[in-house]
């Protein structure tokens, strides 16, 4: 909602109501978001009215259908040229419909669809009291291990609320990279964060960890979003507006909305720079960049694995989208200020993530740290500050999200009595016991490591290439070193799976239903496809590489 509209509404309050100009909303161009939000609302109603028996299927159907429809809408828009020639600002300046937005929305939607599949997986755990169970608590509110929970399990309750929550989160994520004013940015952030906090708390097994993860995520998330908000406030104070366009104008001096009388405080760069720093911090937190990464390992470990996969993939995409837009649309005039800072962040993130990962013993934490390192690589692409930089980051995000979801989906399969066997020692000799699963996971690990002929390599190459062209050669060298370190721990897992003898009490590999199978297959296919023949997708990302102003 645009501020000026409200302003006019405010000032003309005395006038008869029919004078109020209705804000102009381009529904078709906002369709992707609207569909998902609508579906989310609808599925809340489903929770309310559909009897418990039918909920699971109706929810699953509804979410998948909505996401698919929304994806279709995105494709339609892109085909309609909104990604390139007809790119525009919609919803009275609140939301941008352009290449990056559509590309990222598409990625997010696809990732969400496969993620939702893993949400709905009900074959992995043995049936409990004759009820098939998924990875979510029977009743989140019940005390872990309490009688109430037992009763709930006995009754076969399941937390189908995860579907509306996921949908809301997706909606927020769709808006986040498309947000074209700071207010929308903030709202979108909260809209996708809050459901995620809740989703983290809903694990069926190891509920204490799950709740702790949720608590940490929530507190730190709120903390960071407060910083972000204050940053917004300062920028508003600097530019007198929250819309990207205006701020950008003020920054490079083309627009001057500054009241001369107040020149001493208004429009002075301290506000701008501090505000920018705070805003950046908020986004870097979501991205999981050092030193704002501390939440990542704990939350990734504690959250239900399907949720972890969803978060790791979709959140990163959304957050990087927002970061790109902020840096390229709002603050191009500030490039010389933010580049050095980002250099520092990128370097510590790449190295920090890689180094700490070496000594991890839990597969989920390992992947968490690897995601941190990857955030660093992505930052290297962001820093390039060139169109090719944008498109390379877009491509990397696309490639990375599928590898991540696939990897976490595999993690859900390896189980022992206590649920998922996430401790690395348990993975010893997996390659002997079930070569296929191990091989698939190895593919994902190699992709993470950036071995050629996997999507990971294409992405890394694209990003580093962009960085080098953008004059960040040194960053490439650091990145290369970091990937060398990172290679070590991915390889460690492979060694464990293939070269060490299986333990007698080792975990078993559950045979998943078609849903998870579909997720993993998609992951592998995309990984190899982007590895062998990435050209088409590079073209997509290349076309999508221009922000609308």
């Amino acid at each position, binding site marked *: 909602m645009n501020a000026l509209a409200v302003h006019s509404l405010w000032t003309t309050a005395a006038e008869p109501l029919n004078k109020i100009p209705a804000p102009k909303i381009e529904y078709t161009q906002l369709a992707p978001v609207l569909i998902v939000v609508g579906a989310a609302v609808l599925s809340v109603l489903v929770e309310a009215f559909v009897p418990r028996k039918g909920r699971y299927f109706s929810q699953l159907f509804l979410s998948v259908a909505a996401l698919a429809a929304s994806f279709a809408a995105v494709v339609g828009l892109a085909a309609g040229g909104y990604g390139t020639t007809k790119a525009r600002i919609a919803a009275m300046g609140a939301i941008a419909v352009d290449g990056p937005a559509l590309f990222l929305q598409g990625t997010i939607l696809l990732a969400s669809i496969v993620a939702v599949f893993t949400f709905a997986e009900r074959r992995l755990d043995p049936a409990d009291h004759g009820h098939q169970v998924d990875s979510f608590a029977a009743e989140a509110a019940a005390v872990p291990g309490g009688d109430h929970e037992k009763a709930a399990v006995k009754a076969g309750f399941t937390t189908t609320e995860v579907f509306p929550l996921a949908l809301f989160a997706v909606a927020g994520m769709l808006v986040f990279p498309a947000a074209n004013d700071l207010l929308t940015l903030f709202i979108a952030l909260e809209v996708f964060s809050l459901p995620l906090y809740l989703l983290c708390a809903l694990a069926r097994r190891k509920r204490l960890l799950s709740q702790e993860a949720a608590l940490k995520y929530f507190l730190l998330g709120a903390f960071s979003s407060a910083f972000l908000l204050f940053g917004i406030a300062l920028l508003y104070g600097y530019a007198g507006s929250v819309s990207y366009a205006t701020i950008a104008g003020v920054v490079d001096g083309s627009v001057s909305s500054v009241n001369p009388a107040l020149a001493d405080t208004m429009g002075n760069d301290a506000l701008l720079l501090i505000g920018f720093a705070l805003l950046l911090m908020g986004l870097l937190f979501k991205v999981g960049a050092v030193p704002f990464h501390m939440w990542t390992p704990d939350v990734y470990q504690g959250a239900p694995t399907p949720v972890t996969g969803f978060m790791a993939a979709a959140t990163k995409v959304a957050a990087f989208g927002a970061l790109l837009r902020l840096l390229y649309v709002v603050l191009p005039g500030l490039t010389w200020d933010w580049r050095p800072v980002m250099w520092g962040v990128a370097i510590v993130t790449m190295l920090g993530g890689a180094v700490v990962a070496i000594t991890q013993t839990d597969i989920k934490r390992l992947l968490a740290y690897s995601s941190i390192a990857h955030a660093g690589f992505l930052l290297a692409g962001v820093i390039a500050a060139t169109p090719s930089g944008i498109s390379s980051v877009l491509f990397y995000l696309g490639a990375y999200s599928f590898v991540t979801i696939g990897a976490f989906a595999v993690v859900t399969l390896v189980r022992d009595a206590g649920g998922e066997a996430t401790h690395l020692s348990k993975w010893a000799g997996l390659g*002997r*016991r*079930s*070569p*296929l699963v191990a091989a698939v996971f190895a593919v994902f690990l*190699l992709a993470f490591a950036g*071995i*050629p*002929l996997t999507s990971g*390599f*294409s992405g890394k*190459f*694209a990003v*580093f*290439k962009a960085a*080098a*062209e953008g004059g960040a*050669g040194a960053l*490439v*060298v650091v990145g*290369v*070193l970091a*990937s*060398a370190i990172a*290679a*070590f721990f991915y*390889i*460690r897992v492979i*060694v464990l799976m*293939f*070269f*060490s*003898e299986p333990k007698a009490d080792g975990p078993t590999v559950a045979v998943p239903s078609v849903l998870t199978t579909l997720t993993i297959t998609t992951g592998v296919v995309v990984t190899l496809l982007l590895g062998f*023949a*990435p*050209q088409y997708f*590079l*073209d997509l990302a*290349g076309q999508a590489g221009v922000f609308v102003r």
Partner: protein
Amino acid sequence: MSFPLLTATAAVPAVGAILTAAVPAARRTAAKWLALIVSLVTLVLAGIVFARFEPGGDRYQLVESHSWIRDFGVRYELGVDGIGVALIALTALLIPFIVLAGWHDADPLETSSKRWRPTQGFFALILMVEAMVILSFEATDVFLFYILFEAMLIPMYFLIGGFGDRAHSGSDENAAAQRSYAAVKFLLYNLVGGLIMLAAVIGLYTVAGNFSLTEIAEARANGSLEMATSTERWLFLGFFFAFAVKAPLWPLHTWLPNAMGEATAPVAVLITAVVDKVGTFAMLRFCLGLFPEASKWATPAIIVLALISIVYGALVAVGQRDIKRLVAYASISHFGFIIMGIFAMTTQGQSGATLYMVNHGISTAALMLVAGFLITRRGSRLIADYGGVQKVAPVLAGTFLIGGLATLSLPGLAPFVSEFLVLVGTFARYPVAGIVATTGIVLAALYVLVLYQRTMTGPVKEEVRSMPDLRPRELAVVAPLIAVLLFLGVFPKPLTDVVDPAVRHTMSDVQRTDPQPEVPVQNVEAAK
């Protein structure tokens, strides 16, 4: 367009690998035969390549070129020059013997589960490596080459770590640990090298804008592509580092003894005789082809390192207790010769180096495979555990000796030709280096003969008393290799004819000409 011969040569083993891997667990013998047949078909194709290649023709022949990744300026470009042809032939020639020699190396132990199919995996991986190596010899696109250069590490890694030598000292766990250590060491060394090369590859792109070897070379030749001296040197170092790890050049060599020691003999041969050749090949084609000036700038240092490799490798080989590690260090010494020959920048040196790659491959294969047969019989890699084998298994001992004599490059066997060419080529430009390198001749004799004496001669040890002589399968592996060694030893012409023009091209890349003799003798023919 014509039949894509080069692609086929690489595709056959690749497809074969997939098929082999798909063979059901119970039918592992079928998998073996399939692998063998595929490798033979590949050999035939390689033969056709060799035949179709005209030494007098263009520099790169049988060229194929398709668009691949436009955004990275990457094309699927294949083409072979004489050097490539020779090395493809070597690879295709060795793989069948490796398969045959490893016939029983991957038979599953009874402890393993139904789904576990090591045999299929073993041969599939070997074929996969063959495919990648062959393709990397054909690639004329730097990026394509780089991708294969890196990707081939993965199957090699599984071959080393997954199928260790069953003849190990100490407990199984201990052996497994050592094996995975060797595998990880192999992978990390080469991966680090590769990643540093990646930085250089990206750098090359930012400078040149594409990856086509031919285009870049042209552009550099006609001056349309200027490269700042420092840039060129950095890029050269990036590339060279990766190749020097792979080759391996002192002091980046320590992964090789571990890898060759822990892997089964056929895999060890695969490492040193086939995969490592990609490194030296790449020095010749990419370092010299892309960065002639930098190559010349770096030559003195590299010659010194090569010399160190030669002497150091040989001396350390003398001190080894483990047969396979000894061969590994011998190879390090030989790679020193190859690299020295390449950077001597003379026709003799570089032709010698190329021949050396081929001959070293064959001779090491002969020696190592026989050593493997020996080791599987006795179940130990320690030299001290043998003695007097020659009395109980004369054929085995004889073939072993011939392999050893080839390793010490005795005239009449192929390696002599290449080694002498390298020496002459080096001597012509760097006399001192040439003279120092000749000490390698003595040291080689030392480690080979000491090895032979300790294992084969003397009174017969109790443990080896009941040792059977070579079986027909094993003889079928060794005999042809020895035949090839002898043939190339007295009649290397077919090979030199193919290699010479390619070398001349390389020489023109670096704008070097052979030093002329001070008293040129015209009437060489007249003397006859």
